[in-house]
């Protein structure tokens, strides 16, 4: 058993790295074998270290005090007060930086929430739009006249009071329409005459007649107009074209006349499908170029039979125009309550005097029965 004093001496030497190799080995062996002595060695080590730290700090303190004693306090005060001037200049920047430091986590959370909300909403809107896109692709070919009021004013001739009235308040919506029977019944689209205060029709020659809506069918988008007790309207004996209710074949050459602008415009194409927009069996799809204002115009086949009424087109693809089948025109007419016709049934003819004529002559005859439909609405 090694005595305490000798062991303490060894620990001191060990701490100072002064043990000889043989002593070191023996010392290590004792520490390993005797936990009590090992603990005493640790304690002595701690104590020595604490004393060393104490000495180090005391020494450092006296060094600091020596430096401080040599310090030119006036210069330091000067510098400190200069500091305060500079700081004051930058104090707002400092405050901002501190606010930023303080609220940075909150800002980060807020920003994340904002980002998620924004993109989430965008995605939802996207999804919603894509599911509703096709509906929007269907555009009704009526024309908004507000935009072209000025040119219209220039074109219209000041012939009579009615036209003056029109000049003062030109139609807000325009489309096309055509005669169903010689005595003044016309067909056009319901979406043109919707919410109308008054409806006028204008012939290719520029004659304007007031018309009343006899019937408006929203299901087939067909509306029946009648020239309103106007003596100026000359009743024809027959219409040049007939109405063909039987389905036409794909590839049938077709043409249309309408009023996408103030002049009547001819368009030509072919029947491309037996169904309309999204498989709508009441309509044909026609490869024909139409513009706003063509709505309500007749769709005629080679022989000059009316096989449909232009109603709209798909905005996403070119040359996909839709025309309501004549068959549904008949259905619409047959569902008109008889009293709104005042017992004058619409006499529609299947007779057709155009079959043998060349296209130019067909058009000359047909255009007299095609009218521009002008609609006046109460300004909302």
């Amino acid at each position: 058993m090694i005595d305490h004093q000798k062991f303490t001496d060894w620990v001191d030497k060990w701490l100072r790295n002064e043990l000889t190799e043989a002593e070191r080995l023996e010392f290590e062996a004792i520490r390993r074998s005797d936990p009590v002595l090992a603990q005493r060695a640790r304690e002595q080590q701690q104590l020595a270290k604490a004393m060393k730290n104490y000495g180090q700090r005391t020494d450092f303190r006296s060094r600091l005090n020596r430096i401080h004693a040599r310090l030119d306090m006036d210069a330091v005060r000067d510098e400190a007060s200069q500091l305060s001037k500079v700081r004051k200049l930058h104090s707002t920047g400092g405050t901002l930086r501190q606010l930023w430091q303080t609220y940075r986590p909150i800002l980060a959370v807020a920003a994340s929430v904002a980002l998620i909300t924004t993109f989430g909403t965008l995605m939802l809107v996207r999804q919603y739009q894509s599911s509703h896109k096709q509906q929007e692709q269907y555009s009704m070919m009526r024309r908004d006249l507000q935009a072209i009021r000025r040119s219209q004013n220039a074109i219209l001739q000041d012939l009579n009071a009615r036209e003056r009235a029109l000049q003062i308040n030109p139609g807000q919506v325009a489309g096309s329409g055509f005669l169903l029977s010689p005595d003044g019944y016309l067909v056009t689209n319901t979406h043109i005459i919707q919410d109308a205060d008054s409806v006028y029709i204008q012939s290719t020659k520029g004659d304007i007649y007031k018309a009343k809506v006899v019937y408006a069918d929203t299901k087939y988008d067909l509306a029946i107009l009648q020239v309103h007790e106007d003596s100026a309207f000359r009743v024809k004996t027959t219409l040049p074209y007939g109405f063909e209710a039987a389905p036409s074949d794909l590839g049938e050459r077709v043409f249309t006349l309408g009023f996408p602008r103030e002049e009547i415009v001819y368009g030509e194409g072919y029947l491309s499908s037996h169904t309309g927009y999204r498989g709508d069996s009441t309509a044909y799809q026609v490869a024909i170029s139409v513009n706003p204002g063509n709505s309500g115009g007749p769709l005629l086949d080679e022989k000059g039979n009316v096989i449909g009424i232009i109603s709209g087109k798909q905005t996403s693809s070119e040359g996909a125009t839709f025309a309501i089948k004549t068959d549904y025109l008949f259905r619409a007419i047959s569902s008109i309550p008889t009293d709104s016709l005042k017992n004058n049934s619409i006499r529609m003819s299947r007779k057709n005097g155009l079959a043998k004529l060349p296209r130019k002559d067909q058009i000359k005859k047909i255009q007299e029965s095609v009218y521009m439909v002008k609609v006046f609405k109460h300004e909302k």
Partner: protein
Amino acid sequence: MTEPSRLHVSDDHLLAGLANGSDTMLEELYKRYFPMVLHLILNNSGSEDDAKDIYQETLIVLYEKVTADSLELHCQLKTYLYSVSRRLWLKQLSMRSRNGNSLVDTEDLADVDDDLTDHESRDRQFDLMADSLDRLGEPCRTLLEDFYIHHLSMQDITEKFGYTNADNAKTQKYKCLMRLKRLFFSVFKEE
């Protein structure tokens, strides 16, 4: 030291100088950042003496970290010193039970929590050692300081204290150490 040369010494050089005990470097360091701390303390209801105490304690924190090679500086030295001083002063203010919870800050702050926790435990150890050595009395205190702090050899101590031989000196040192040990460990518990 003159103004231009102050700009030439980088913070890294200052820290290196601090670690190997250079007095010029320490003086340079002392001068460089004392105005900042003085400004802080004076603007927050302290005196010049407070500023001196706080600044010196701050430098002690830095010094002991540097000598223990455990300084991890994640910011400018200036920011570190400012943050430490600020915390020490806040503590001082709360001890004086003044309204010290909002200081007027002029500098960026760094996270010095760990360093200050270390410093507090070293502080306790230092105070305890100072107290133990005081109670130990002479000549034990000087004998132990000479051996353990100033690293004199037993031979030097024998001559300095006029012991007849080194063994006597060793016995004396042993007795003194045992007394100090009792004083110190009666309170100190290694955390």
